[in-house]
């Protein structure tokens, strides 16, 4: 069970409040997606879930246990891949296994299996600089999946990819989730991506970020975004983000007054 739960979480950096009273739950094996305007603390939520950072107030629970530091069953995927440039694709994937005590030869063999899974077995000896953006992200995904994570966190992982590669990666992540049963929490700016992937959508408001709405989307994959329900939701989300963009032009006090006056 790797249910992820945020309970009244505040996160401040110095005197700046990045997130306020964040509460949501991603059931075990579900695909959660966080959308919201820039600066609403989306990436901070991932750091908190990964145990890289501690909440200023409140609690984060994973599988019923409070997150207090880095855990073995959590993997994080970044937008800019963060593969180690001095290691081959295979060594990158094997690194986490080696750090968990697996013998060199076995870790290398396992890494090759995971690279094969993402269709990059032939590129095992290439270094990241010799791979395209999509290939790098697949290596990063293989590196994350090799650790068999119960929770897979993704920080705008496909934002730097072209349209076609993004679509392929989205399908791959969905099939991986089906196969492994991992809980996924993805942060994105891309509403179409959010509606394509999410079982549960967390809609955030602007800085300091707080949960505006939690929306469950029960629709089979692959999803047709022109379906009236999804198209309607898309328009609603677009409206929310546009309003947030307008509100971001004002100070916090002004925003408070505007919201109080409806």
């Amino acid at each position, binding site marked *: 069970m790797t249910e992820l739960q945020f309970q009244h979480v505040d996160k401040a950096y110095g005197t700046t409040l990045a997130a306020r009273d964040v509460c949501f739950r991603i059931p075990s094996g579900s695909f959660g997606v966080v959308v919201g305007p820039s600066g609403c603390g989306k990436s901070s939520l991932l750091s908190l879930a*990964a145990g*890289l950072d501690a909440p200023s107030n409140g609690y984060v629970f994973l599988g019923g246990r409070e997150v207090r530091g*880095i855990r*073995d069953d*959590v*993997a*994080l995927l*970044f937008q*800019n891949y*963060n593969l*180690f*440039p*001095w290691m081959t694709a295979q060594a990158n994937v094997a*690194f*986490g296994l080696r*750090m*968990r005590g697996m013998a060199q030869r076995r870790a290398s063999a396992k890494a090759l299996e995971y690279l094969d899974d993402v269709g990059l077995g032939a590129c095992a000896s290439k*270094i990241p*600089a*010799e791979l395209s953006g999509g290939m790098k992200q697949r290596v990063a995904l293989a*590196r994350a999946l090799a*650790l068999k994570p119960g929770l897979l966190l993704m920080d705008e992982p496909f934002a730097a990819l072209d349209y076609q590669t993004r679509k392929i990666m989205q399908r791959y992540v969905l099939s991986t989730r089906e196969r492994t049963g991992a809980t996924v929490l993805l942060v994105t700016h891309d509403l179409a991506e959010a509606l394509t992937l999410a079982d549960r959508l967390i809609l955030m408001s602007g800085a300091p970020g707080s949960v505006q709405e939690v929306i469950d989307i029960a629709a089979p994959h692959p999803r047709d975004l022109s379906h009236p329900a999804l198209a309607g939701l898309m328009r609603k989300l677009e409206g929310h983000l546009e309003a947030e963009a307008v509100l971001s032009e004002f100070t916090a006090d002004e925003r408070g007054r505007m919201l109080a006056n409806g």
Partner: protein
Amino acid sequence: MSTPKRLIAADIPFELSGGEVRITVVPPDVTPTGASKAELKPAAGHGSRALTIGSFVMVWLVVGLLWELLAAKGILNGRVLVPPSGFLPYLFQGQGSAGIGYNKVTFDSAIVATLLRVLAGFFLALAASLLGAILICAVRPFRLALLPLARTIAPIAPVAWIPLAITVVGLGSGAAIFVVFMGIVGSATIAAVAALDDVPDEYRKVARLLGANGANYWLRVIVPAAAPGLVTTMRMSFFGAWMAVLAGEMAGISSGLGALIILGQQQFNMKLVMSGIVVIGLLGFVIDQLLAWAGRRMVWWEGRQQRWSIPR
């Protein structure tokens, strides 16, 4: 580039409430440029290294010819500023020596002594500064204790250590190695700390999430990530070491290339002085090239990256 034989165009009108939208597929605007694959040049690699050596030889050839010309015309005093035609045969005939008896210094022995001293001091200082930098970055009390120490030692000119070195270690190689070590260890530590501190936070996060800690974290992630900066530190430190050892040999340690030049000056043997200067410059250039080569080996992945980057 081949031009498509058949171009397809289509007009697709749409009637929308806000007015008509027309999407038109247009033929590509193909302008034959005559560019072919043969004109695409690979990124600079070994060619640029040959160019470095070539430009080095060319520049000094021009300087040498100009020098000869000015000396021949009497514009330069050839007895003081001996032109290459005067000191190069002297150098290659192996006549380079100064002093007599116990104090006699020959070129061969001077080169060997200076090289051994500089390399010993240089590598000891590099090892100490890397270890110190890792401790400074890894353990907060060390940052508070060692960094101010490095910042205090760094501005002290190597020459300032010579009296202390001679008093404590005595005349000879030990003093020269001490001067080289003290001359560069402070600045190398500060530069290494900066390189380690500059490692992107994302690498640190990934390393921690993948389970790296302790020596694995530092030696397999942080040091390789900082390697480009550390290699630059290594090369810059060598110049400091080279200058420190020569200053030390000139200012009291009575052997090595620096001492040879001073003895040449005392005997007004300007051929020896000029030969010594040329040997110092050449050796420095060669060692720097060797360090650059070693640096490229250390950060081998950057060489493979450059194939995909814009040539500078």
